[in-house]
């Protein structure tokens, strides 16, 4: 692709899976769509991207990413994690708060925010901790994080459940002051002490301590009632059971302001894989049964579940090359999310590409209150765009990924769909399926 003045003409892309149209990107925005692109004054000198057969979608927004920095730079850094995000088709990620130090102060969230801007691959939206040190005892300074340069709107103790009902109530009430949302990791701690995998037929045989569905569902049931009572906004992280889908469906029917996310791995994999005792399948919440997988797909298709969140959780190899019980929980997901969702939701006929745009971008940006993301692909809108080749097939090889984590449960699987290009603020972070260059602020030379 030739150097140019930052204008790109995407020719003949199928917009959200519909008819083929041109998109002209100039000065960070979509300057023109359709026939108007060819006659737009900026089109001269634009780099042309032949996009026949490709689907154009709004850049994906992940509501649930672990970038590990600060503190666990041996697992991932903001730089490596956001490279992975760009390659996966993302233009924004929400960086979870369980770093070290925990992102429970304005200082830490501003640090993560600056690291994200310096990296320039995607919009890094720090998530603030709900409680100090994720300890579940006292509220972190949510207002200070909201007012900081990071402008935090999502708060979560993800990894740990805010299980104290009074604390959860107060958090839900307090974030109303700045239009925040509490993203709950729903896990009743007493019911999951020492839990290793889904409790059911497989755990009975394997002799691994069970993580019962009721431990998730009981917290979700409590929290939707709390959200109703205090009239606030609740987001449920990584919903994993059929029962949880039912409870959220019930809550939405009652008008409760709840949103929910599902991970790609919970849309595809089941606890049968644990029979290998290979810790690459160890994750929290755990892989469930096929009935749960089907219920999650149905819930995502009918809107009960609002978004896909990757819960991208890289770990150094020594945390997975060990006994199951010793292994860390988590899987990488940024570079496989698009393909897994295409495989499980689009190729099954459950969703269209327009639905895909909703669950991976539009709804996610709305939950996180991320301006300029999840927008329509229309003239005048910010140019956060991903081009996907839906006909491509590729075999997952963790060694070739940009993330530092090698813990992909999809290793060896052949999946559909390939990210051809990602535009972040009008700049191609990915071109021809390869990392290009990061976005740089027009005025500032370095990070803020």
């Amino acid at each position, binding site marked *: 692709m030739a150097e140019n003045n930052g204008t790109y003409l995407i020719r003949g892309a199928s917009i959200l899976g519909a008819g083929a149209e041109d998109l002209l990107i100039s000065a960070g925005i979509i300057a023109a769509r359709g026939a108007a692109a060819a006659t737009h004054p900026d089109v001269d000198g634009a780099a042309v991207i032949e996009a026949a057969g490709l689907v154009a979608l709004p850049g994906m927004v992940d509501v649930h990413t672990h970038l590990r920095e600060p503190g666990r730079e041996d697992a991932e850094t903001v730089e490596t994690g956001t490279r992975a995000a760009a390659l996966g088709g993302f233009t924004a990620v929400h960086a979870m708060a369980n770093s070290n130090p925990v992102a429970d102060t304005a200082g830490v969230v501003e640090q993560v925010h600056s690291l994200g801007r310096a990296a320039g691959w995607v919009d890094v939206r720090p998530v603030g901790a709900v409680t100090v040190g994720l300890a579940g005892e006292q509220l972190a300074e949510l207002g200070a994080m909201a007012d900081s340069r990071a402008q935090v709107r999502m708060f979560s103790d993800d990894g740990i459940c805010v299980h104290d009902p009074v604390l959860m109530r107060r958090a839900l009430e307090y974030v109303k002051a700045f239009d925040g949302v509490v993203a709950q990791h729903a896990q009743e701690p007493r019911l999951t002490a020492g839990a290793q995998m889904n409790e059911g037929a497989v755990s*009975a045989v394997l*002799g691994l301590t069970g993580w019962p569905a009721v431990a998730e569902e009981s917290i979700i049931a409590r929290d939707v009632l709390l959200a109703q009572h205090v009239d606030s906004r609740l987001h449920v992280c990584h919903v994993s059971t059929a029962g949880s889908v039912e409870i959220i469906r019930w809550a939405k029917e009652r008008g409760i302001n709840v949103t929910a996310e599902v991970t790609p791995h919970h849309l*595809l994999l089941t606890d*049968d894989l644990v029979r*290998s005792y*290979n810790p690459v399948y160890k994750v929290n919440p755990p892989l469930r049964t096929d009935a749960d997988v089907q219920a999650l797909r149905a819930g995502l298709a009918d809107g009960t579940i609002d978004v896909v969140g990757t819960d991208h959780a890289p770990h150094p190899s*020594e945390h997975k090359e*060990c006994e*199951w019980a*010793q292994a860390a929980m988590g899987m990488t997901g940024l570079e496989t999310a698009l393909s897994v969702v295409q495989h499980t939701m689009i190729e099954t006929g459950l969703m269209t590409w327009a639905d895909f745009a909703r669950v991976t971008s539009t709804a996610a940006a709305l939950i996180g209150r991320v301006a300029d993301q999840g927008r329509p692909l229309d003239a005048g809108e910010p140019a956060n765009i991903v081009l996907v080749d839906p006909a491509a097939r590729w075999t997952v090889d963790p060694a070739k990924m940009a993330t530092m984590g090698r813990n992909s449960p999809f290793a060896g699987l052949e999946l559909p769909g390939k990210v051809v290009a990602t535009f972040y603020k009008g700049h191609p972070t990915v071109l021809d399926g390869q990392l290009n260059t990061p976005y740089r602020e027009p005025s500032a030379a370095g990070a803020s």
Partner: protein
Amino acid sequence: MKHLLSTEDLSLANAIRILDTAEEMAAVGDREVKKLPALRGRTVVNLFFEDSTRTRISFEAAAKRLSADVINFAAKGSSVSKGESLKDTAQTLAAMGADAVVIRHWASGAPHRLAATDWIDAAVINAGDGTHEHPTQALLDAFTMRRHWSQLAGSASTGADLKGMRVAIAGDVLHSRVARSNVWLLRTLGAEITLVAPPTLLPIGVEHWPCKVSYDMDDTLAQGVDAVMMLRVQGERMNASFFPSTREYSRRWGFDDNRLRALDSLGLKDTIIMHPGPMNRGLEISSAAADSPRSTVLAQVRNGVSVRMATLYLLLSGDTREPAATAGAARNHSTKESN
């Protein structure tokens, strides 16, 4: 057979082959010189991440009777945070030339990890992993039952299975690797199994197991039973609300003197009482039951050495062919994605 990791995937033919070989090994134990040269020059490592003197010395005696060199590696307390990882330990043993690793580990699946990774190429024998399996214990239990069952039938043990034998396994099934290994193996051998336990000590999902489940010990005995296997109640269960008190447990699920007498009054004169040891006398089994002529506790210990000799011999003697009749009959656990 390259490893012995579980009885769940042990075919009938392989189970019979181990038990028949154990019969031959038992004959060695009756000789004045209790030793065979079969495994001379081979190295067997007993890798124990959890204390178990009984199992360890049983494997040690078995290996020594086959003339193998035995190394005991007590790795208790070793953990990722405190010391060497399982991977490093395995690679160390591989570098030292271990031919077989007998592993006892507190973590379910640890032997599977050794067998499935390229950390070590040796034969792996599961000597008890977490709350998963303890296959040689089940094999020695089956060996003990088969001798009893064949004797009643007036036929030889060798080649026989346990078809028609009614076995009750009673106690903490939830946390018992012995119960799991026995359910799969005894079922493969044709026995009819009833698990007897408080509902709190049965795993969710037990309804998929190939056995009956009862909450009532007396009812199970009254229905007729040929062997009763009592499981040990671990101390740490006693204060975790699995049951209200040890006395209540003992009354409802223990094999006490009343139930010992009940066997007589029910006309079950040939029913044996089994326990994998170590016993909590007065809790899950009364002294009278443990010491009665029905008790096979010491025979089980004796048979343990024979079964472990057979296992080591079959895994290390080079004959790793599957018996023709049922090769591939073991349950197939695919790791394919599910849709």
